[in-house]
Every structure is written in C-alpha cells, then in structure tokens.
C-alpha cells in the first residue's frame, strides 16, 4: 500500500517536470534534453536560497522557479532561436550541448558533493486502508467529472454532435487523467487484495503519507490543472496552441509568436524547477547526476503520453511513477529505472504515437 503513496508522489513530481518538457516539445518541435539540467538547476538554486538566504522552502522554491523561468526564456532566445530553422535534430543536439554546459556550470559552482536540503518531510498522516481507498476513489470520481466537463467543453468547440455522449468523452482530452486515476484505483485494489498486510509500514495496518508528500501531489496536480485551464480558457493559451499547431499561420494572423515562445520557455523551465525543488526536498539532498537521472524518465513519460494533450502527458507521468514504485513489490527497487525504460521501449514498439495521443484518431477520422 505504501508503495502506492510513493508512486503517486513520484508520478506527481514527474508530471510537473514532463508537462513542461511536452509543452516545449509541442511548440518548439524538438526534444529538450537540457530540461533535466534545468530541473537540477532549479533544485540547486532553491538550496542556496534556503541555506544561504535563510528563506522558507516555499518562498525559496517560488523564487527558484521564477529565476529558472527567466533563464529558460533567455536560453530559448539566445541558444535555440538562431538554429530553429535547421530543424529538430540540430535543435536536439544543441540542447544536448546546453545540457553539458549547465551540468558543467553546476559542477563548477556547487562541486560534486551531496548538497543537503535542511527541510524535513513534515509529520506523517496515517490512513487506514479503507480510508485510503475511499479517498482515492473520491479523487478518481472527481477527476472523472472534471475530465468529462473539460472533454465536453473541448468537444463542443470542435464537434458539436458528439458533445455529452460517452463516445465524445472517450475520444476527448480529459480521458488521460481519468484513465490514470481509474488505473490507480484498480492498482490499489489489486495490491490491496494481494498484499493486505500493509507493506513497509510495520507498526500499523494502514498507509501513511507525509504532509510534504501530500503537498507535492496537490501542488503538481494544481500546476498541471492550471496549465490545462490556461491553455484552454485564456487568450494567451489559445495563441499558444495556435502557434504550436501552425506557427506561420499564427504569425500571419497577428499572434505575437516571439512572446508566445517566451511564455512557453518560462512555463516549461519554471515547472522543471518546481519538480527539481520537490525532488530535492523529497530526497533530502541533491548530487550532480540529478539532471541526467531525470531526463530519461521525463523522456519516457513524455513519449508515453504522446503528443497532443497535457492531460495525457500527466496521466502517463502518474502511471510511470506508479509503475516504478509499485513494481518494487515484485522487483527489487534497484531496477525501478529499468522498469521505466522497459515500459518506454515496449510502448514505443507497440504504440509509437504514445498511449494518449490524439493524432491517430484524428487521422482515422479524416
């Protein structure tokens, strides 16, 4: 049971990191390998702010996010903009180069030793198994409702005829989140059935969750949801989606493409920093390989999620987090990365467009 909590936290943090990566992938059309290093940079920045600046962890995290976001905008304009015409592979290799530059800069500034985060995980809240399942089920129901509403909104705008039907629900954007949470609920009950003795908790038969873990799950969820609302409801969000699907048409229509690109870099990098801070707090410290470790998992989650939907990416991230931590029941924890990449390789072979991609359905429909 405890592994489900770990998995949800891992998944939530991963979702925050991956959504930013996916946003950049969508609008700038390349795989931003340096995203992992941006995440690490955010983590290190927050650590300085906490230890040297004496700031509260939330304030430090927020400042780190803003600073990293601004840096992201600068990098987008200075490093990537000039080579944008040369296409995806050049951009990708530029990003690899940038990853090494940031990695080198981090080593030069902070050294290769472990940097501790002087922030505890907070007190632990205990649930009985029944309560925990109830809470999850409630969350799943709520998410389904929200997903359904979002789906209908999106559908109504595009195809009036299917709005409100189950077919419309199934085909639309909220599906990813719904699927993830339903899967989570199924996993929970499955694990419950097989391992009801309360794994890893020892003293009592329930589940416990640290307040900081709960905060991480909620904040990631909040960040991703607000991004979804930002993209679907605001004018800037519409511009952003327009620029992503057809940049030249968007430019012709008078959308300030450069501003939009700046916004994308800001949001993407800030979300990465947020994930970085969370990982740092959760582990109690960071070492320099942080960025490299994370970029592979982010890549996996982004590819699993496929292109075309923020919710799909988020669902994939949560699923991957669950898979990595819940698999610890049967496979030694040392293999959690192998599990993640195994899932990635498998999915790429079976469904190269990703689990929640809308592209194939769009192609079939047309």
């Amino acid at each position, binding site marked *: 049971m405890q592994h489900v909590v770990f998995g949800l936290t891992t998944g939530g943090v991963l979702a925050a990191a991956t959504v930013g990566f996916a946003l950049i992938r969508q609008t700038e059309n390349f795989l931003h390998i340096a995203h992992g290093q941006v995440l690490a940079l955010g983590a290190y920045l927050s650590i300085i702010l906490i230890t040297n600046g004496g700031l509260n962890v939330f304030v430090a995290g927020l400042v780190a996010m803003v600073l990293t976001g601004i840096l992201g905008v600068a990098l987008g304009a200075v490093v990537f903009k000039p080579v944008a015409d040369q296409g995806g*592979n050049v951009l990708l290799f530029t990003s690899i180069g940038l990853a090494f530059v940031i990695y080198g800069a981090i080593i030069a500034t902070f050294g290769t030793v472990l940097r501790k985060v002087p922030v505890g995980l907070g007190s632990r809240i205990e649930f009985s198994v029944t309560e925990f399942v109830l809470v999850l089920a409630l969350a799943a129901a709520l998410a389904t409702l929200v997903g359904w509403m979002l789906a209908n909104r999106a559908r109504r705008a595009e195809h009036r005829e299917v709005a409100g039907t189950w077919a419309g629900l199934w085909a639309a954007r909220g599906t990813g989140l719904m699927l993830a949470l339903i899967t989570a609920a199924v996993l929970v009950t499955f694990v419950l059935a097989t391992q009801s003795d309360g794994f890893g908790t020892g003293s009592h038969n329930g589940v416990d969750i640290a307040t900081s873990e709960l905060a991480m799950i909620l904040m990631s969820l909040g960040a991703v949801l607000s991004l979804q609302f930002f993209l679907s409801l605001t004018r800037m969000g519409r511009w952003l989606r327009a620029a992503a699907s057809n940049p030249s048409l968007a430019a012709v229509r008078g959308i300030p493409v450069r501003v939009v690109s700046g916004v994308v870099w800001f949001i993407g990098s800030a979300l990465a920093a947020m994930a970085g801070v969370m990982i740092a707090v959760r582990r109690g410290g960071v070492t320099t390989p942080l960025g490299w470790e994370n970029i592979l998992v982010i890549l996996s989650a982004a590819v699993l999620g496929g292109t075309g939907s923020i919710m799909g990416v988020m669902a994939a991230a949560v699923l991957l987090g669950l898979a990595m931590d819940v698999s610890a029941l049967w496979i030694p924890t040392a293999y959690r990365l192998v599990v993640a990449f195994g899932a990635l*390789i498998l999915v790429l072979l079976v469904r190269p467009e990703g689990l929640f991609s809308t592209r194939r359905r769009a192609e079939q429909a047309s």
Partner: protein
Amino acid sequence: MNTLAAISALGSPTFWMSLFMLIGIYSAVTMLLNVEAGWGGMWDLGIVGLLAIGSYTYTIVTNPPGEFDVVYSPGWPVWAGILAAMATTGIVAFLVGLPALRARREYFLIITFAFAEVFRQLAINVRDLTHGTVGFNSVARPFESFFEKDALRGVLLAVTWAAALLVYALTRRISRSGYGRALRAMRDNEPVALSLGIRVSWLRLQTFVLVGVAVGGVAPLYLWWLRYVAPSVFEPQFTFTAWTALVLGGIASRSGAVLGVGVLLLFTELVELIDVPPEFRNVHVAVHPLAIGLLLVLVLRFRPEGLLSERGTFGARARQTTALDGAGAAVASRLRRLSLRGDSGKEESS
C-alpha cells in the same frame, strides 16, 4: 610549482602515449558512429551501451578464476576474450536493433539512449556477474609476460592504432562501395532507396550489427587503457563525447571523426593535466562537460557541417564521375542539410 608539475608531465612520454592511445580508441568508436549515424542516418545515442556490453564480456571471461567473487569466470585467454566481446556485442546489437530500428526519427534516438542506460543499470544491479558499482579493478592485458611496463605501454599503443587504422580502412572501403552508397541513399531518401531495390530494413540491421561487432572489438582496447571496469565508466558522457567529436569534425566526413576526436581530447586532456589549487578543483572537473557542451552548441550554430564536411570525403569522387560538379555539389550540400534536419519531411514508412 603547479605549472612546473604540469610542464614536466608534458615532457613525459607516458602522458603522450596515454593520450594518443585514448585518441586512437575514441577515433575508432567515432568512425564507427559515423558509419551508422553519418552515412546510415541512424542517430544512435546508445553507443556506450554496446561498449559496456563488450567491456563486461571481455572482463568477465578473461578474469582469472577465483580472483573476484562472481559466479562465472572461466579465465579465457585474451584473444578468446576479444572474440567473445565481439560476438556478444554483435548479438546484443542484433537483439536491440530488431525492435529499435523499427522506430524512426527521435524515437530511435530515445530507444538507443534508454537501452544504454538499461545496460548500465543492469551492470550496477546484477552483482553476481558484474561486481556491482565497484566493478573490476584489474583487466587482463595481452603481452604482459613478454614486456616491461613501459614497453608494454608502447606495444598497446601500437595495437590500438593498428586497430584504429583497420577501422579507418574499413570505413574507407565502405565509403567507396555499393554498400556505402546504398547507406547514404537510404539516409537521404528512403522511398527512392526502396524503389531502387535496396532492402532498407535489412541494411539498417546489418549496419547496426556491424557497428556493434566492431565496437565490441574496440572495447578491450579501451579497457587496456582504463585498466578497470565499473558502471560509472559507461555514463552517457562517453556517447556525447564521441558525438561532439563527430559533429566538430563534420558528420559523414571520414577523416572528420579522427580530426574531431584529436582536437577535442587534446584540449580536455591537457586541461586535466593542469594542477589546480583545491579551491578551483570544481571548476577543473567541470571543464570537460563545459567544453563538450560549448563546442556542440557553437559548432552547430556557426558551422553545422563541421570542420571537414561530407563534401570533403565524397565531393572529389563525385567530380571525377560527373560533369555537373557544381550542381552535384549543390545538391549534395542541400541533401546534407536535409539529412541534418532529420526526416522531418518524411512520414514513417512502417
């Protein structure tokens, strides 16, 4: 004082022999990467994974029995170890290639990257066979009983460069053969290559396995230089060093790979040599990644075709055979740019 130490090291033949051995090894790997990525268009980010497979196979089968606490150490002679490394790496490349080559564009890149990391994780975790994160602190080297320590270094250097020359001869042969032309045709325009009767997927797999076998052969050389094996050796940085050298020298240019490796390693190794006071130790360690990164970013920005371009390798021959050399060169450079852009214009053919 520190400068003096650095200068005396510069004068020592040991340093230069070690440096040139490393350049030979990296050149061989980068030339092989060029066959695969530069000519075949298969952008492999996992070449270090194949190197890891070769290295571990070699070490495990050649370690004297009983010296390390692992389940299998038959203590084979060095030549058998090399053959075993080549065979295993070839088989693994075949097994990886079967699924990976079905994926195109950036997905191939991700899969190879992921496979390399999976291999490294396995090396860390399958302790009974690989000795975990510690690895093996000694590696069987050939001719150890025949030569003194210094002479042995010279012999190994010669062997390494012989191997690098062999790889060079191989790539030269490939570049002039129908096989090489088929590779480049496949890279530039897959539908046309298919229509010309080139069996594209078979050609890809063949090349991938060929590169695998050859990397398996290079792996023991690397170990003779390194003299230990541990998972930390096979981090992605190796792959990216080879890639940076390739981009720097010029993708798809035959000699560019060697030139790129020479320039890059000369720089990073000379910097390693500088003795710094402890307060600058971090900056010192950071120079290698910083150099790779900056070079990659700057070369792609200002000279994307690299120091020596593909035209340098193939242009002269093209001029011999065609009267349209100006137009041919223009088309070649256009194609070059297109292939750097990736297959973005093409659809997946699967």
